[in-house]
């Protein structure tokens, strides 16, 4: 039995309550076994800090991001309009999500279709919880002094200029943040964006995630941190390709923080 408290929007609404923030879990966070762990880490943090949040649960639908990137604007807009009806029905004002693709779509592409929300990435929310004293880290936990490199998700970094929040969190762990040669605006994609996650790559001489994992390995990290479930998959596969999975962990920033706060 899980000890997580995960109220749904429908439950809250029925009891006449309004959450402060909606946690948009996303398809990956809901269905992918690895990404579910990230989702739970986020919920642990939200529960610990007594954040009044809710999820849409079965009322949540794909944002339509992969459809839009694949060129199917019809499917995208159908998804968007349905989601906006649900979100506006619950009078949602603020959304947090652990997926940069959902983050980008909700934040940038929903407003023109009638969905106006304040949308933040989970690293920004956690940063805020720490800065306002709601979340205390117990001296960095198991990651103290460890070498951690951060892989910038394209849809968080270049697409939305969020570079600092995840890095500040890693520094809060008392860990040694080592940048890859290609980082921040210059960061290399993991290979999953633009609907590539769902198809074989075109013919080339290398997989993009292998190229990116090589960048990460050059920093000789103990942890490769990221803030996107798709990047996580790609980097995990890359680390396995080099048979380094016993030495190097690929973790989401939320997992690092939940661990350091002993949640």
């Amino acid at each position, binding site marked *: 039995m899980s000890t997580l408290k995960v109220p749904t929007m429908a439950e809250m609404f029925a009891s006449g309550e309004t959450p402060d923030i909606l946690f948009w*879990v996303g398809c990956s966070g*809901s269905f992918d076994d690895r990404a579910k762990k990230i989702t739970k880490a986020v919920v642990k943090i939200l529960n610990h800090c007594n954040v009044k949040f809710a999820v849409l649960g*079965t009322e949540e639908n*794909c944002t339509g991001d992969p459809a839009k990137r694949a060129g199917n604007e019809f499917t995208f807009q159908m*998804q968007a309009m349905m989601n906006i009806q649900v979100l506006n029905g619950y009078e949602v004002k603020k959304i947090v999500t652990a997926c940069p693709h959902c983050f980008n779509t909700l934040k940038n592409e929903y407003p023109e279709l009638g969905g106006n929300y304040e949308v933040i990435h989970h690293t920004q929310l956690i940063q805020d919880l720490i800065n306002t004293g709601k979340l205390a880290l117990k001296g960095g936990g198991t990651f103290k002094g460890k070498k951690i490199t951060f892989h910038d998700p394209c849809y968080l970094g270049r697409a939305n200029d969020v570079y600092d929040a995840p890095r500040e969190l890693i520094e809060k762990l008392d860990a040694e943040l080592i940048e890859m040669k290609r980082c921040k605006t210059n960061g*290399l994609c993991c290979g999953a964006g633009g609907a590539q996650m769902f*198809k*074989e790559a*075109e013919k080339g001489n290398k997989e993009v995630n292998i190229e990116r994992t090589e960048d990460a390995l050059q920093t000789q990290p103990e942890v490769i941190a990221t803030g996107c479930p798709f990047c996580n998959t790609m980097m995990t596969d890359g680390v396995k390709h080099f048979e380094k999975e016993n030495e190097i962990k690929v973790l989401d920033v939320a997992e690092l923080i939940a661990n350091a706060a002993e949640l």
Partner: protein
Amino acid sequence: MVSIVIFALLLTAGTGFFVFNAMKIRSNILLGRDLDRSDRSSERWKTMILVALGQKKMFSRPLPALLHLLIYVAFVITQIELIEIVADGLTGGHRTFRESLGGFYTFMISFIEILSLGALIATFIFLSRRNLLKLPRLNMAELKGWPMKDANLILIMEIVLVTCIFTMNGADEVLLSAETGEPLSYGFLISSILGPSMFGGIDAHTLHLLEQIGWWGHILMVFAFLNYLPYSKHLHILLAFPNTYYSNLNQKGKFSNMESVTAEVTLMLDPNADPYAAPAEPTGEPQRFGAKDVTDLTWKNLLDAYSCTECGRCTSSCPANITGKKLSPRKIMMDTRDRLVEVGDNIRKNGKDYQDGKSLLGDYISEEEVWACTSCNACVQECPVNIDPLSIIVDLRRYLVMEESKMPTELTGMLTNIENNGAPWQFSPNDRLNWANED
């Protein structure tokens, strides 16, 4: 007098032909679809000043940025000297502004000389990076043939131009003392040394000739360069300014919203819509979804194509290209421009509705290239003049998917899953919250 007439004719023909070609380019760009970029003008000016005038984005690669800056500043400042050349040419005078400007004139010419020397050095380094060091991004497949020749020709023209400036000033310096018989000098910082050491002891007649060769050579190169521009990749020296002014100012992750689709989707989701109602009268010409040819792209995409100077920063940062895929964002821009020139010429020759049976997608850009993109925005980030190859790639995908239903089979499955299950994978929507109760 003859020389004044020749100069006036050259000036008229040189600028006239350039204006004629510039109008052609303008009409080609306007073949693109409408896009409103008339908003946020103060932000646009700021972007243009930082990115085009200040070359902010060049400096992510400091060495080429510095070399490029040398040529750029020399080019801009030398235009001041051009004012005098035109004045001299039209009046038959010689160094028209020297007397009235006095010491400032000497300073300006000396300043121009220093910049010209810097530009000359930079040009040689650029030539060797391209031809001797063979930098990967300057030697890729899409540059074979004309683009490579084009790039070298521009650099050679630069060398000829600077040589002319120094021949003119150097010969003039020696002439001054040769004609007066006294050791006089204009005091031009470089040619007062270079002149005597190269042309010292030469008779006055030959020196006059050398000075004239330098003068005419300079102005002829300027006219040649001006009229070469519309045929070369080098238009960025002018178009960088409008192109950065009309930049996309939204977050890079925001893809354009297709309003034609919004209208249909809204209707589909409207419970009060009458399914048997007669369709609304179509307004305007029906547009295809996405882009098959250059005329389906926006005018900004087309301006982007003309602004590209083929530096390849986009391609060298493209994850698909780095890992050996066919996609090269630079090639997307080059193909768009080449096709646009072809379409524009066809229209001027054969009328507005002429079809040559070719299209950007298929004849220039292959589907394989279009599908290799990860939409990571690295190309957009890297471009020193804010070109957006990604928006062209996305519009080509939109055409393939929405008009022809052509896409990699796995994507068909993904899209079906989204439509049926609300997720890109085949999971039941009812299981979406199961994670909350799993250990």
